[in-house]
């Protein structure tokens, strides 16, 4: 091992992305062969992940009312959708009567919980 061990400050700079280029590459090369610095980097990574949690809105506790609210809202939505279907079924032609409405298709879009940041806004502009 020819390079010196990491300082806590260097580890923190690396996990926050403040260490770039050759300095970051040198740190990574050292850590690849050093279990002591690997543990230091892992500890700073846990701090960073915890800070990311702290910057997100605090989850509200699920009270009995909140536990009931979701199923009640779903049931209400089902009644509204069903009544909408009945009220408009006579207006639809026979050809499209069996297709799913766009509003119902929207409910099938998969969601990824815990995601926060928009890729599209940060994507480089296409050529």
């Amino acid at each position, binding site marked *: 091992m020819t390079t010196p061990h990491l300082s806590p400050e260097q580890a923190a700079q690396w996990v926050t992305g403040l260490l770039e280029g050759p300095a970051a590459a040198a740190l990574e090369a050292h850590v690849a062969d050093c279990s002591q610095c690997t543990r230091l980097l892992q500890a*700073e990574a846990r701090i960073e992940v915890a800070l990311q949690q702290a910057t997100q809105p605090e989850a509200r506790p699920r009270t009995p009312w909140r536990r009931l609210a979701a199923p009640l809202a779903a049931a209400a939505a089902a009644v509204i959708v069903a009544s909408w279907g009945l009220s408009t079924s006579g207006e639809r032609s026979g050809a499209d009567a069996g297709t799913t409405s766009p509003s119902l298709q929207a409910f099938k879009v998969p969601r990824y919980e815990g995601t926060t940041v928009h890729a599209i806004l940060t994507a480089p502009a296409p050529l």
Partner: protein
Amino acid sequence: MSPLSPSPLASLSQRQAWDGLVRLHSRRVWVSLLAQGFCLEQAQELTQETWARLWAQHHRGALAELSLPGLAITQAGFLARDALRRGLRSAEEAPGPEREAPLPSPEDRLASAQTLRAVRRELGTLPEHHRRAFELAHEGVPHADIGRRLDLTPQRVRQLVWEIRTRLRARFGETP
């Protein structure tokens, strides 16, 4: 033309945009894996595998929404659990007879709900611009973009993020 067979030009520009996203968000994925106890090399491999899988899904049109870095971190979490099942955990994490039971460290205390609340309170005492810069940085928004939104230079954003993190980090270390 089928979405599965885009023209070479479309594919190239998409690939370049994708590579930009990978460069932008890889460190967050990497750090999330390090925090789970993987060594740097394993974290790098899992991060590459994460992007390869997301690219394949994106190319197939299987992703209705591409929210990053959250989606990549979630995907990496799945791969990490699979790797742990297959026994690819870091050698440092493997239990051994000489390994002592770890004492609670500052980072362990930070993870507790009590400490998280203390952090949030501390963040609440910051000036609005400073707190917002710190939050946006931890959402993965580049410093240059944060600067444009908050009318700050990227250098000032970097300085703010570092100062706030250092302050919070020191506070966590003192938490009993």
